[in-house]
């Protein structure tokens, strides 16, 4: 009797805990979303009059279109280059045993812990010394310094569980190095590549401190949000914030669904059964 009593108490505690965590995470975002639908210029609660005019304004705004395009270009290039670099970086990190690997593993992760604002400023100084005009292209470079190590780390998890004998077996069955990569290594590591790529995109899309110093005359979405909040607040700030957040959520959902659809058959096979 008392056992079932205590298990019921445990269950209700788990529910309370879960609801608290979800509320803690989502209340700020919900507040921002509500602010974007408010008629008043400044956010006050409760909302007395509702409107969608800020959405119309945001969609029609040419400067917002520029912002989105800049952010998208930066994030897309960062994703492509990071995944390419990090794929081979992760192989060196986790797949091959070589002299100096331990040192490499430490050095390659160091930039993650470097304060981003300081890194941004340092890069800006370097760009000016080297006489490079800063623009969204230089921001791509800056983002990569911070993001490539993270993507290497994410991909390494997958690489660690990769059995090198699989590559040897393919090679032994007559495959060239390139065929081994295409037929065995890439498909097996693809979940790591996809999650690494998703992280690269989202981290670049939302990055503020590095962009602030390195985009020059160009402006990304986070920079604009910050600038508008500091001076010249408009409800377009919460609107664009809500839109980009929804965009990110949709992006992850789409990647997940595509992955599920493409991989359903394969994953069914890869799932081990307990016979």
């Amino acid at each position: 009797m008392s056992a079932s009593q205590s298990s019921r108490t445990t269950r209700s505690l788990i529910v309370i805990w879960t609801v608290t965590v979800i509320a803690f995470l989502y209340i700020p975002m919900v507040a921002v979303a509500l602010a974007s639908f408010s008629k008043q210029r400044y956010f006050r609660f409760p909302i007395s009059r509702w409107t969608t005019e800020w959405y119309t304004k945001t969609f029609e705004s040419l400067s917002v279109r520029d912002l989105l395009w800049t952010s998208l270009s930066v994030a897309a290039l960062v994703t492509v280059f990071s995944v390419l670099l990090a794929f081979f970086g992760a192989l060196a990190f986790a797949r091959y045993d070589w002299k100096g690997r331990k040192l490499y593993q430490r050095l390659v992760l160091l930039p993650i812990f470097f304060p981003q604002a300081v890194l941004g400023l340092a890069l800006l100084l370097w760009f000016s010394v080297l006489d490079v005009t800063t623009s969204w292209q230089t921001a791509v470079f800056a983002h990569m310094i911070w993001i490539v190590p993270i993507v290497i780390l994410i991909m390494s998890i997958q690489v660690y569980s990769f059995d090198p004998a699989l590559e040897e077996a393919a090679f032994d069955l007559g495959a060239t190095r390139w065929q081994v990569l295409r037929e065995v290594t890439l498909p097996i590591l693809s979940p790591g590549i996809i999650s690494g790529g998703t992280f690269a995109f989202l981290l670049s899309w939302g990055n503020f401190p590095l962009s602030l110093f390195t985009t020059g005359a160009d402006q990304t979405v986070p920079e604009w949000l910050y600038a508008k909040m500091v001076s010249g607040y408009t409800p377009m700030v919460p609107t664009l914030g809500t839109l980009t957040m929804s965009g990110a959520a949709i992006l992850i959902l789409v990647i997940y669904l595509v992955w599920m659809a493409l991989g359903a058959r394969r994953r069914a096979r890869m799932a081990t059964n307990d016979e």
Partner: protein
Amino acid sequence: MSEDGSAFLELDGITKKFGSFTAVRDISLKIREGEFFTLVGPSGSGKTTMIRMLVGMERPTGGEMRLQGKVLNDVPANKRPTCMVFQSLALFPHKSVGENIEFSLKIAGVDPIRRRRRAEELLAQLRLPVEYYDKGVNQCSGGERQRIALARALAFDPQILFFDEPLSALDFRLRKTLEKELKDIHKETGKTFVYITHSLEEAMVMSDRIAIMRDGGIVQVGSPQEIYNRPVNKFVAQFMGEVNTIAVEKASARTVRATADGSTFQVPGMPAGFETGFLIIRPEVMKIGKAAEKLKNKVKGVVFNDYALGSRIQYQVRSDARDEHWLVERLQDDPYEGHVDDKVTIGWQPADSILVSE
């Protein structure tokens, strides 16, 4: 060199050094076409390094290997007409059973219809249902996965098929079944099989010839019968399983003396130049009780323990002639009724013992 002209795979002084460590030293072997040849050795004996060199994953640092007279040393694994079944099997987890089996055919550019037909033939040959073609490899049982790995290697149509202890992870009964199946497949295909294992027992069941490795070198090469009946030294004899090993020295032209207590035993023959060595007697040729009384070599001792081994009973007997216990085995229906702490006589025929010098 060539006392046997029919060498298919010939190893000539193969050596592999990793820095200052020599994993394989000066191995020369001739493997015949169609033979089931097994390299047996404990871990660290160099057998894994040896097979990795044979497959092309490692390069020898000395010596030459030739397949039908063609030097293989610098040919990479993907250009060799040989193929290996890996210890972990290394089945591709993202591919179906069928895709695994026909992998080498896909690489060779064979069209999908012919690939599939060949994969289905192999499934049938290895007694797997044809429906398994679309199944995931991780959904198959341990024994099925073994057969898939073998089918994948056979699809490559290799001139030599190598095996790196593929059965070591399986439970006893399944291993016994697959050992016999593998021997059947060998007979059916007529291919040359080169197998490595740490289990001499496994090697005995399947092999035409066995090479025993130790510390990177080969200790003895021969048929299972030769290895069993005429081990060249104590190491090979003990590798077979439990044996009685008595440290002895030469006493006369037909006898040896136990170094522990001086008792003398007759031997089948004295190797030229023999001074000291070991007398080896298998537990199953030893007699106990009345049956031992009339034998030429006997020892008095006390039964220390007994074990039921299924069809046989094993006794441990203590005596002064050796430091260790004697092991004596008799069939369940033999007349001796022994008990622990009985004083008994144990013995053996001189012809059933083996004298080795190291």
